[in-house]
């Protein structure tokens, strides 16, 4: 699908998990384009998954979640996971160096020459997306192919996906497509949900999903659990203030001027 890409427009991914076939073409295309190292081969014992997780070397991760269908038989939930390019990005909130920026395409990007590897963003990302690389001394994640977008090309994963489970485009268009797909699946008797399409998950996700089960089944926080680290600033500092006042009071009681002499 050809897309005209221009700065100032919000772009993203719509990942329709109902048509993911688990071929991992997206993982391979991502690794090839971004020149990410391969994983050392080892058996994870976790279905057909041999990637394991999103990290510094894996910016796309196809999940294979074995579950039970409505009819009681075995079923697979497959989903190509990626950085969500959150509208309210927890990683950006806590980054002390300003290395994490929002680009002209409304995506979230880590500037490799600014990041100093403090790893605060890893503790904040609610999706476990960011990984630290000992080789570069910095953190890495999906760039939504920032370099390709600047050259007018769509991201490598979306281009490689043979089923169009991963669709790239202006978010406005993707939202409309997702809404239509939701209605179509509902009319077929399914009960899918759109995750991150609306602003109830981190102000809306640049990479949003159509899920066939509840978010937690895919390792995604529910709407209620999708909270920002920032929420703890005020209570955290108030707790510190309370501790400070009480400790200073304790010190004042101990050191107060009493009518005692050193001989006592």
């Amino acid at each position, binding site marked *: 699908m050809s897309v005209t890409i221009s700065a100032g427009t919000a772009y993203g991914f719509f990942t329709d998990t109902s048509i993911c076939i688990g071929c991992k073409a997206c993982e391979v295309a991502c690794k090839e384009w971004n020149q990410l190292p391969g994983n050392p081969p080892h058996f994870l014992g976790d279905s057909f998954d041999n990637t394991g997780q999103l990290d510094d070397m894996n910016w796309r991760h196809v999940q294979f979640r074995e579950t039970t269908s409505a009819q009681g038989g075995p079923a697979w939930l497959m989903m190509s996971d990626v950085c969500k390019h959150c509208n309210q990005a927890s990683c950006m909130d806590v980054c002390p160096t300003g290395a994490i920026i929002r680009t002209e395409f409304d995506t979230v990007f880590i500037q490799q020459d600014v990041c100093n590897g403090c790893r605060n963003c890893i503790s904040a990302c609610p999706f476990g997306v960011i990984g630290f690389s000992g080789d570069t001394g910095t953190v890495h994640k999906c760039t939504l192919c920032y370099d390709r977008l600047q050259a007018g090309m769509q991201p490598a994963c979306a281009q490689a996906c043979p089923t169009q489970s991963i669709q790239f485009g202006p978010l406005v268009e993707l939202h409309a497509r997702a809404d239509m797909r939701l209605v179509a699946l509902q009319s077929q008797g399914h009960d899918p949900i759109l995750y991150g399409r609306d602003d109830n998950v981190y102000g809306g996700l640049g990479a949003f999903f159509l899920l066939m089960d509840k978010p937690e089944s895919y390792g995604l926080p529910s709407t209620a659990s999708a909270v920002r680290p920032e929420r703890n600033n005020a209570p955290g500092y108030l707790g510190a203030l309370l501790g400070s006042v009480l400790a200073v009071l304790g*010190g004042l009681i101990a050191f107060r001027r009493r009518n005692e002499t*050193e001989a006592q």
Partner: protein
Amino acid sequence: MDHEHFAVSPDWKWYILLYFFLAGIAGGAYVIGALLRLAGGAGRDRAAERLAFLVAFPVVLICPILLTLDLGSPGRFWHMLINTTPGQGGVNFVSRSPMSVGVWALSLFALVSFVTFVATLSEVRGGRGAAVRLMAGAGGSLVVLAGALLGLFVASYTGVLLSVSNQAVWSDTWTLGGLFLASGMSAAAVVVAQFARRRAGAGTERRLAEADGWFAVVELLFVVLFFITLGAAGTAGTVLGHGWALLWVVVGLGLLVSLLGLARRGMAGAMAVVTPVLVVLGVFALRAVIIFSPQ
């Protein structure tokens, strides 16, 4: 509120543990020095006050070294302070990021505690230089007050830094700042008392033991609040399972000896050798269990 967590570990390990520990002692020692100066009897605890200031600066000097060593790119430590994004530049201060605020507070605290250190050292040596004259007057009290406020921040913000995340345990409680502050003050009190043993009178030692006891009371209160908040979030098991309970025993012993010191106040020798060791170990164990168990 019970939140499910899918965040992965930032792999903050020994450097961070040591930093959190020393930041508590450095900040705590300065605050103790300030309290002795501003609230203590006129000159009564002068020796302990000086020692507290002399302890604070060398300890705080180690802190940035630890923080730098923990970075993936240590040569870029200064990126915390200066924005190197092309086309932006200028000073980096991100108010919503406790790590950013903390780096600035640590830098300012190091500066103020350096001035205090130099003045105190030259005073001890009988000097009458500009620093000594500055510190002797009202200006000196203002410097000490600013240092004490910064010290309180440096000793406590590390807890807030952990909470401002999406990690299990850390983000489930608002108590870590108060907990780290009170425990840091407790460790600082016994460290200053140890240095003060030969130079200050028995009265000073008693008062420091009493202060340690009060800090332990505050710490105990925050430990209770910590477990109440984790209980509500359903993550208390994380800090108690897998043998972590053993570290809580060490924390408990440290608290116990401090509280006993408070109960026995007025008795000489309240700071016997075993007491500071247990207190310091307890404070270290507290940070270790909180930092390591969710990771």
